[in-house]
């Protein structure tokens, strides 16, 4: 047994977790910059990741070292366009299958989109869920994946994951992700988000909404 008992972690605060879930659900748009390291049985690489999300619309960009091997996935869960830096494009309803072929990426984006902000995937009951003393997810088992939340940071008053590990033991896939910057959009609950952030550049309004004229 351990030579000394580890410092007792704060007991899970389920009340705070309820409130935290409500806050996260109000989040209509977010963008993150980070680093990912993927390991599969036959491949391993690391890349920088820029992921912007507007309700169900995703703009997911991976970029390898020196900008090599850039891949971009844009669209909503039903239909996405995948482009890569060699000028190839695909349209598909199953981005994971194409991404796995092209880059070895096997983590389901539809689920990761929720895990990455610290929520379980809403359309499936998690097999296991653990909450920390701050009312945030500390570990989640869902869809055959284990997600560990190693670090949180507070952005505009909202606790968001700074470091997560997504692991599928059966498939032998491990994805490590570290977020260097979160930028959050409008959280008044309204879907019509328009964000212009000079440092990050203009964000597109949700497609179909008209661009506010500055």
């Amino acid at each position, binding site marked *: 047994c351990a030579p000394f008992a580890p410092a007792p972690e704060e007991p899970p605060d389920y009340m705070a977790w309820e409130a935290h879930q409500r806050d996260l659900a109000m989040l209509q748009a977010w963008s993150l910059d980070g680093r990912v390291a993927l390991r599969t049985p036959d491949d391993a690489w690391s890349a920088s990741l820029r992921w912007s999300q507007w309700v169900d619309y995703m703009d997911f960009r991976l970029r390898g070292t*020196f900008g090599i091997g850039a891949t971009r996935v844009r669209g909503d869960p039903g239909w996405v366009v995948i482009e890569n830096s060699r000028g190839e494009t695909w349209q598909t309803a199953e981005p994971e299958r194409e991404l796995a072929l092209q880059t070895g990426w096997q983590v389901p984006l539809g689920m990761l989109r929720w895990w990455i902000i610290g929520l379980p995937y809403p359309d499936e009951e998690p097999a296991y869920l653990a909450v920390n003393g701050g009312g945030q997810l500390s570990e989640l088992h869902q869809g055959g994946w284990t997600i560990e939340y190693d670090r949180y940071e507070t952005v505009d008053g909202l606790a968001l994951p700074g470091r997560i590990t997504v692991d599928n033991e059966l498939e032998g896939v491990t994805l490590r992700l570290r977020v260097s910057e979160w930028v959050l959009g409008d959280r008044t609950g309204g879907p019509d988000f328009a964000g212009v952030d000079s440092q990050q*550049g203009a964000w597109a309004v949700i497609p179909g909404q008209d661009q506010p004229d500055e």
Partner: protein
Amino acid sequence: ADDRPGAADLREILAELHSLRANFEQTVLDSEFVVDETASGEVAIKRPGRFRWDYSEPYEQVIVSDGETMWDYEADFEQVIVRPMDETLATSPAMLLSGEGDLEDSFVVEDEGMQGNLRWFQLRPRVQDTEFERIRIAVGEETVELMELRDNLGQTTRIEFHNIEFNPELPDDLFHFDPPEGVDVIRQ
């Protein structure tokens, strides 16, 4: 642009580059030329084939090649991926400067002339489905000072060198990477 002796000049300039050490700034611009990512660190290059890119910002990452093996170390993930040097990197900035052989084998080289105090060359890949659609190299008094690589997504990776040491003495063991204690070594 008319076909001035761009290729010959660039070949000569690169032939004089045996080694280099400098600080670098890497900026990635998206298709609308909005800054997407910036990184910086130190680079050392020793021809043929050896290079060491020590990224310090925004993440600590080291990419080293001794010409045969490449190490890609990420401090924060405590992981180093070790893989043989291969052609996918042939058109990467790392290889452009440190690679052997003639650029003209894989690129059509054109002289874009002087802009400010830099002389620009444009390189278009001869083969179609390469990583980069167009590469530009700028040369100062002594050697290469700036590279721009545009891929087919319209992204441009711009690498600028500062405090350049031209042809310094560089020990070979600089181009070898010994993983620190406890780091996950992944062989590809």
